[in-house]
């Protein structure tokens, strides 16, 4: 920011750096506030049409189909003996995976002080919350008797019965609730100052809404001190929670006696897979925000896609390592049933899905992401988001459905075809996610303005010899 000390001949280079990096390109807070508020209040006709369609489609394909499923019985889904878990559990694991992006981008990058995170932490945290909202539906949807789900909650009752704390499903229940509550609070805390800003700047029903939601925030030294301390605690504490959530989801499979599931590497394998799909989904969401929400081209720039692309490449490599490790060890183990399962994956009926997974998760990312120019193109990263998520959906399909199709008694081998109701519900969660996200994009500031301004304060340019470099000051 000390441009006065920079000589004129470096002007061009400085301009270049400004254009590249959001944090070197400060605009007055008022203008940023206005930009963010404009984005929120930009409820145009297109938006209303899209949201109406999304809402109606969700109501029919998700909730309508769910109601139909409940009224008739789970037989409407394509599951059968011995494939007792199907698309619902696949989708459940998938959405839990997506939900890891918010925490990863926000908490881990905050702990490691990765400055590029600043403008899109909230977009990622919103993803976490809504993906969890979608994921949380599946354990309910897939129950044979959804209306009895509350028996999993530990509460004193006339039956004198408690849930079985040995069951991985109860661990799931505890972990997902902890994560959902934790990540929602973690979304809300840094949002308070922005809501206070919105309160000061808006009128009508929005003013009432933000007055309630901002809890009378004023930005005093005390308030900031407590808020920052809390955010710090959250950032550190929510990381192990996030790791535990997907580990426990993987334990749903790994603790079972089922061959193809009983694997010691499933915990970290699932975590890396979750972050892989989550990070790539962030790329897709940022692209969507950039093209569809007003004023966002200033906040979300190629540098952010570049950074995400690098992360994605590393995580794709990590995923490939775990995948190879798992496959190789199972293969060398040489047990008959496992051999059959692996044959079923690679050359059997599951082969198209299995190879989709390999191509989408390893081949395509590795071929594309090494190139900086491609990484910097938002649409390329959006496409990567779709491709990697197709690959990750396929991975969960292979693990859940593939392993269940083969067991120790060949008489009981089976195949599985998702039914229309299942597919409809699975698609319905996607529309639900986009519907909620679209709603939130007009209700709360998508960009954490105060964090961006703080970033502006922290970043500067410094001349060294005949060049100019970026500097970062540690404010926190």
């Amino acid at each position, binding site marked *: 920011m000390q441009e006065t000390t920079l000589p004129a001949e470096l002007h061009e280079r400085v301009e270049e750096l400004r254009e590249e990096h959001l944090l070197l390109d400060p605009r*007055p*807070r*008022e203008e940023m*506030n206005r930009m963010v508020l404009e984005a929120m209040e930009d409820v145009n006709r297109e938006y209303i049409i899209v949201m109406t369609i999304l809402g109606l489609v969700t109501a029919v394909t998700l909730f309508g189909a769910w109601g139909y499923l409940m009224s008739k019985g789970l037989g409407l889904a394509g599951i059968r003996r011995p494939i007792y878990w199907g698309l619902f559990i696949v989708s459940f694991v998938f959405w839990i995976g997506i939900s890891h992006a918010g925490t990863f981008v926000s908490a881990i990058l905050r702990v490691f002080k990765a400055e590029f995170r600043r403008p899109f932490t909230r977009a990622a945290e919103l993803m976490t919350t809504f993906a969890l909202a979608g994921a949380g539906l599946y354990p309910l949807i897939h129950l044979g008797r959804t209306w009895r789900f509350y028996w999993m909650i*530990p509460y004193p009752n006339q039956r*004198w*019965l*408690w849930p*079985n*704390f*040995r069951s991985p499903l*109860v*661990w799931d229940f*505890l*972990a997902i*609730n*902890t994560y959902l*509550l*934790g990540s929602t*609070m*973690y979304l*809300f*805390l840094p949002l308070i*100052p922005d809501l*206070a*800003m919105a*309160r*000061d*700047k808006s009128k009508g029903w929005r003013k009432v809404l933000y007055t309630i939601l901002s*809890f*009378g*925030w*004023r*930005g*005093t*030294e*005390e*308030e*900031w*001190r*407590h*808020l*920052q*301390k*809390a955010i710090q*605690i*959250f950032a550190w*504490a*929510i990381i*192990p*929670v996030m790791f*535990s959530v997907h580990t*426990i989801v993987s334990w749903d499979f790994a603790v079972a006696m089922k061959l193809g599931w009983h694997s010691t590497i499933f915990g970290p394998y699932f975590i890396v897979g979750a972050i892989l799909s989550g990070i790539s989904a962030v790329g897709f969401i940022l692209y969507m925000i950039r093209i569809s929400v007003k004023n966002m081209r200033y906040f979300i720039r190629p540098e952010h896609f570049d950074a995400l692309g690098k992360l994605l490449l590393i995580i794709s490599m990590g995923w490939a390592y775990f995948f190879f490790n798992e496959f190789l060890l199972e293969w060398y183990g040489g047990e008959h049933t496992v051999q059959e399962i692996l044959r079923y994956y690679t050359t059997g009926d599951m082969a198209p899905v299995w190879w989709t997974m390999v191509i989408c998760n390893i081949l395509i990312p590795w071929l594309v992401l090494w190139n900086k120019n491609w990484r910097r193109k938002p649409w390329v990263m959006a496409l990567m988001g779709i491709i990697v998520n197709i690959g990750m959906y396929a991975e969960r399909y292979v693990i859940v459905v593939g392993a269940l199709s083969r067991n120790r008694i060949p008489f009981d081998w089976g195949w599985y075809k998702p039914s229309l109701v299942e597919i409809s519900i699975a698609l319905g969660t996607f529309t639900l996610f986009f519907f909620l996200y679209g709603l939130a994009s007009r209700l709360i500031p998508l960009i954490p303005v*105060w964090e961006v*301004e*703080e970033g502006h*304060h922290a970043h500067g340019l410094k001349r060294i010899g005949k060049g100019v470099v970026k500097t970062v000051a540690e*404010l926190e």
Partner: protein
Amino acid sequence: MYGGYQGRYAPKTFVALYHEPDDAARAIDVLREIGIEDRFIQVQSGVPYRAEFLGRPERPSGVPKYAMVGAFVGFLAALGLYYGTPLLYPIRVGGKPLLAVPPSFIVLFELTMLGMLIATFLGVFVESLLPPVFGKRVYHPEVSDGAIAVFFQVPAHLAERVKQALAATGPSEIAPAEGTFL
């Protein structure tokens, strides 16, 4: 504050608005030189500034204490649920002992973290006394535009002197303010 004083000694609250932290820091020095104690000064800002930037007294936040208490409560709740409920009504499964230690770590971990996170969250509101239930508090809406608002309380007869002294620090506005600090 200045409780009981009437007339020309009655306290009055003012706000001085700045756009640069340097100016705000100088203003606070000026106020202190005049003899206004730190507790009669309150700073509001749109981004967090560390206390040392503005030369304000450093005070630790109480939030970590909430976190620790919350974690402890969560831990106790988990202990009670995991080890207590099987004793209330024992149900055997799979030939396993009623009280098994290894799976308890999972329950203990999750509920400890849940307790900690909830307590931290609530701690912010309790510690900063949000939402305002004790009446109106001083506030300047320009704070959300990045301005730094320095609120101070002075006895009425000193108000003019303080205002004049502050004029040198380049505030964009000095005005009377309404409400309590809290």
